[in-house]
């Protein structure tokens, strides 16, 4: 603000000063020219020529002033009436006031003149009226100060208004962040819908808060579930060890107890590893390997791996692949995701008297879809979103082995590649679709790395 003010004051001041200099120089030059002309007249024909020339010039209206006097100060010719005594005795450049008739009678005006003494006591006064210039100067000066004042007013006022609006909005952001820091994550920064920089910033902050809230929600859920799903086997493990100690059994019973303990611990380690993998996938620190994957090979690999398991449950596991479905990704991760889907279908997709599981790979153009469809009883529509969450095991499956993490790992893998997992109705049965977008098509997605 101050910078702007002083810059414009400087600019106006400079113009004012330059104008003054220019006008002064013009005035000087005019007077010089007059004098030069009159000097020529005097040199050519003495005082009589001079008076004649002065008389002539005095007749032309203008701002030039002339006076020729004799040695007693009496006026001989010229358009000035008289001059004061003080002035009379000075020689050279003088500034003085003189009177001139006007519409309103007589007015006093300012003049600048040179006074010369000529031989024989004559005096010559050549000058110019500078009253107009003085008025002009006064107007410019006044304009300068008024302009400066106006500018300062507008600048300060405008600046205050603008910054008050801006600060109010920033204050709103500060207030929101304070509420959030105090623990209320549901608060959001208000938007004014203008789409300006601040609005865009607020929108991004809100999106960030949404993501944080979602993560916090996930964390809370995990810790609740860890408490439940890990505490149970840990308690079982501890009780078993305690019971073995208390019962004072033989070597065989001790050994059995120890083996069961190790098994329980292995199960716990598996659960922890699965949790860790999911956490790493969600943090985006895993799965950097970029393998060219032939969906055909991948699907056949896993169908072949699980086929005997399916047969044991009297289920059929078949692969249905179109040729030439290729994509890039971490073969191990995507393989594990597919394995989990198949594993799930075999575990829960049967009806007890057998069943069918079909694994399909298809290219939709935008994404490669790995589809595992079973002919079991499916999942009721209201539970479908829930199955992808950590540790969620639908009621009837609680009694069967499994950590409840298999499908959430699939969901985490899908998210890592900017894709999705769809839980659909196979009529009858469940149809799980792991959709992985082709590389070039998910560049704009902020969730992908």
């Amino acid at each position, binding site marked *: 603000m101050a910078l702007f003010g002083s810059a414009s004051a400087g600019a106006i001041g400079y113009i004012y000063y330059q104008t003054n200099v220019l006008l002064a120089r013009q005035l000087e030059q005019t007077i010089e020219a007059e004098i030069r002309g009159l000097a020529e007249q005097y040199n050519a024909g003495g005082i009589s020529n001079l008076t004649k020339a002065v008389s002539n010039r005095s007749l032309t209206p203008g701002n030039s002033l002339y006076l020729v006097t004799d040695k007693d100060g009496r006026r001989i010719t010229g358009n000035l009436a008289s001059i004061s005594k003080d002035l009379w005795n000075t020689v050279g450049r003088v500034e003085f006031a003189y009177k001139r008739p006007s519409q309103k009678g007589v007015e006093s005006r300012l003049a600048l003149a040179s006074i010369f003494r000529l031989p024989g006591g004559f005096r010559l006064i050549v000058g110019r009226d500078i009253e107009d210039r003085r008025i002009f100067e006064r107007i410019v000066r006044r304009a300068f100060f008024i302009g400066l004042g106006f500018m300062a007013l507008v600048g300060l006022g405008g600046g205050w208004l603008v910054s008050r609006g801006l600060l109010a909005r920033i204050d709103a952001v500060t207030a929101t962040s304070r509420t959030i820091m105090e623990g209320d994550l549901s608060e959001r920064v208000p938007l004014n819908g203008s789409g300006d920089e601040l609005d865009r910033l607020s929108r991004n902050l809100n999106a960030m808060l949404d993501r944080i809230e979602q993560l916090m929600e996930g964390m809370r859920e995990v810790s609740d579930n860890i408490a439940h799903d890990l505490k149970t086997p840990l308690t079982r493990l501890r009780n078993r060890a305690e019971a073995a100690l208390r019962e004072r059994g033989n070597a065989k019973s001790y050994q059995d107890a120890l083996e069961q303990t190790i098994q329980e611990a292995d199960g716990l*380690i598996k659960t922890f590893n699965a949790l860790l993998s999911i956490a790493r996938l969600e943090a985006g620190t895993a799965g950097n390997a970029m393998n060219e994957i032939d969906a055909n090979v991948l699907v056949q690999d896993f169908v072949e791996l699980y086929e*005997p*398991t399916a047969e044991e449950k009297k289920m059929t596991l078949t692969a249905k692949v179109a040729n030439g479905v290729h994509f890039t990704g971490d073969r191990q991760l995507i393989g594990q995701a597919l394995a989990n889907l198949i594993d799930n279908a075999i575990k829960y997709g049967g009806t007890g008297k057998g069943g069918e599981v079909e694994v399909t790979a298809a290219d939709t153009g935008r994404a490669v879809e790995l589809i595992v469809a079973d002919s079991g009883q499916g999942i009721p529509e209201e539970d479908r979103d829930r199955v992808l969450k950590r540790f969620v095991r639908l009621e009837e499956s609680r009694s069967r082995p499994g950590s409840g993490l298999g499908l959430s790992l699939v969901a985490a893998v899908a998210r890592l590649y900017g894709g999705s997992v769809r839980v659909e109705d196979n009529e009858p049965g469940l149809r799980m679709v792991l959709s992985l977008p082709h590389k070039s098509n998910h560049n704009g997605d902020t969730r992908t790395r």
Partner: protein
Amino acid sequence: MTLEAQIPTDLTVQDMSTSGLNSEPMRVLIIEDDSETAAFLTKALKEAGHVPDHAADGEAGLALAESQVHDVLIVDRMLPKLDGLSVISQLREKGVQTPALILSALGEVDDRVKGLRAGGDDYLTKPYSFSELLARIEALARRSAPEEAVTKYKVDDLELDRLTHKVVRSGQPILLQPREFRLLEYLMKHAGQVVTRTMLLEHVWDYHFDPQTNVIDVHISRLRAKIDKEFDKPLLHTVRGVGYSIRADGA
């Protein structure tokens, strides 16, 4: 969860602690900074009939591995002074080709790839079971013997020809699916040793994750049905809590 993995009861079940006794004693260098882990490994390896050495940091480990001959190295990834991967890559630069197993708390595929690229031969994620570790180092020590020249494996009356892909037991040809062949080939390559389920998934299927259910066991029982069922003496044994082993001296 793994209870259902212990399948047949009619076959010989071998106690896990004896698994090491079937192979020659190995000189094992443990490079591990955690003294408790090192003490546990030293004790367990001795019990399995091997001869362990211990170095507590990367520099000491490098010096020991260079100056003395070992059959296998167990290298922790995070070590004071010189990290595990550097120890291995420096050894490899100096021409020391002792097989090395990397122990790490980092278990993702990327870390594994980095470990193997540095010159490690196998990778095991903490926490691990000792039987898994033992099975792996025994397999590694065996691997250091030249194997490419071997075209036929023979265990008792079971023969596998790697070139013609033919399997014969007691003179009777046995027809195997390609994957069953590779499964048997891997087991026979490590005849007398224990191989774990994850080792099988890694080497036969080339997938490096923990299978959630007993997929491997079902493949084994299919293989077993083909190679053991019609014969008096079972060769493919389940080693409870650890994995499988193919050997003649079953009972």
